[in-house]
């Protein structure tokens, strides 16, 4: 159906006005700031061209944050997808008790990241924490977790995966329910074993969901802040400082707005790049 914009305006403006005011204009404004050396205080802007962007690539803290972001991103997305699908496979058909298991695995997603990260920081305590106590019981020496630059990122990743697995699993359960039973029957007749059925029926049939979940979880992981703030504040010695964390430090601790917004746009470029790569690879393995 055709409609004139003026008639559609009543339906479009309740989103359109705040979208313009709080998303579109600010983002364009940010892009502008990233070419200046604005510090929040001074009036007027001093144009510095691409200096902020070039300067970033000479700073070791930026390079470290970039690597940390990639480590954190892959370290979070891959286990989340694998575990999410793994658990979902159990729940393809409902059985007695399945609802309770799903409920428990999903529950972390509902809770505030800051509050549960505080609980995890107690669990991670090297001397008194439960995790090291349990490891000790089975004869594994405890780790320093958040206190060591070797293990801090791993600890942050564990918390993030813990929060995301249930959400991912629910999407996979929805996808698995839609796989026609006849495909499995046909595979059985052809003499396929469980692994072959998974490899040749399940994986291809859920590939659009996998693609979607990789994109969404990547965006979520690039935007992770709360758990890092609570667990490590980016430390020890910058080992858990991601690009987004660096952005906040530059913007609201250093008041270096130019450099901060430049970082934000680099995050955006990475997001677009990863989505694009994923799409390109996806064209090969996703069955639409």
């Amino acid at each position, binding site marked *: 159906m055709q409609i004139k914009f003026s008639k559609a305006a009543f339906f479009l403006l309740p*989103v359109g006005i705040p979208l313009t005011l709080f998303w579109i204009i600010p983002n364009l404004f940010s892009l502008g700031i990233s070419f200046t050396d604005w510090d929040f205080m001074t009036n007027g802007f001093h144009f510095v061209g691409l200096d902020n962007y070039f300067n970033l690539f000479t700073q070791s803290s930026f390079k470290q944050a970039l690597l940390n972001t990639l480590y954190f991103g892959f370290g979070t997305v891959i286990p989340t997808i694998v575990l999410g699908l793994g658990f979902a496979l159990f729940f393809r058909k409902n059985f007695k008790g399945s609802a309770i298991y799903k409920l428990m695995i999903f529950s972390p997603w509902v809770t505030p990241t800051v509050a549960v990260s505080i609980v995890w920081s107690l669990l991670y305590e090297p001397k008194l924490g439960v995790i090291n106590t349990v490891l000790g019981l089975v004869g594994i020496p405890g780790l320093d977790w958040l206190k060591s630059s070797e293990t801090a990122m791993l600890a942050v990743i564990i918390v993030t995966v813990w929060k995301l697995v249930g959400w991912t699993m629910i999407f996979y359960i929805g996808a698995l329910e839609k796989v026609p039973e006849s495909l499995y029957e046909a595979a059985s007749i052809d003499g396929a074993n469980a692994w072959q059925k998974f490899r040749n029926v399940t994986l291809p049939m859920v590939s659009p969901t996998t693609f979607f979940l990789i994109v969404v979880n990547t965006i979520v992981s690039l935007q992770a802040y709360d758990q890092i703030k609570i667990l490590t504040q980016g430390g020890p010695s910058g080992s858990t400082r991601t690009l987004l964390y660096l952005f906040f430090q530059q913007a609201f601790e250093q008041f270096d707005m130019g450099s901060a917004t430049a970082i934000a746009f680099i995050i955006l470029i990475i997001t677009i790049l990863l989505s694009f790569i994923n799409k390109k690879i996806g064209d090969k393995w996703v069955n639409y």
Partner: protein
Amino acid sequence: MSNHKKTPIIIKHLFLAISSILFVFPFIWMVLSSFKTSSEVLQGGFWPKEFHWGNYQEVLGVIPFHTYIFNSFYTSLIITIYVLISSALFAYMLAFYKFKGKEFTFGVVMATYMIPGAVSYVPVYVMLAKMGMLNTHFGYIISLSVSVFGIFYFRQAFLKVGHEIVEAAKIDGASDWKILWKIVFPMTRSSFVTLGLVTFVENYNNYIWPALVLKDNDKKLITNGVADFFINSSLGRDWSHIMVASTIATVPLLLVFLVLQKWFLSGVSDSGIKG
């Protein structure tokens, strides 16, 4: 059932039971620790020797967490209601009408979804400051009143309703407003519930943006209250009191989730993605 079929089922249940307990273990530990004395928390025992309900009184006596919870609930609720209505209106136009600039409008919405929220924080912060709306719930609420995800989600749901029904109603003389709320809404009710829950949870759990714009003590949200309580205690942590704060922040949402679980667990994934 023969024996060799029973064993895998037992193993399956055992595996799932252990895994699910691991997932909720942090909550169990949190609640149990909140009833212990501080030194008892650090001794690492599982069950509290005695339940110290007084911990809750002590914490609530110092920090007004009940105010923070109220702030979080009501701001999230207003945001959720506005997001539901405005996204539905917008998605209705995208799903059922053609108009000049539609492709462009949808393109802009798509692009915005990719941009990290952080990109706009600085200008929006400055804008709220200039409008005198820093430290007000109103400023906070309007700055979060768009959900790009919501627009996508409703558009997918509405497309499934199909053009024919809308066009038939149109011929019968129904207005778009009526069609949306009397025909489309009843057919997509579960999408509304799901998006409502997701939006509410996300806003209730929001931390960094409210930390920047709501600084006054009586304006704070629960996430900021808990985080500040934790960060300010970095010298000499009273873990039992900190666990009380975390419990206060977490348990209300877990209860909401328990009551409405079927909507979370069935609706979330049903967003129209194939496969």
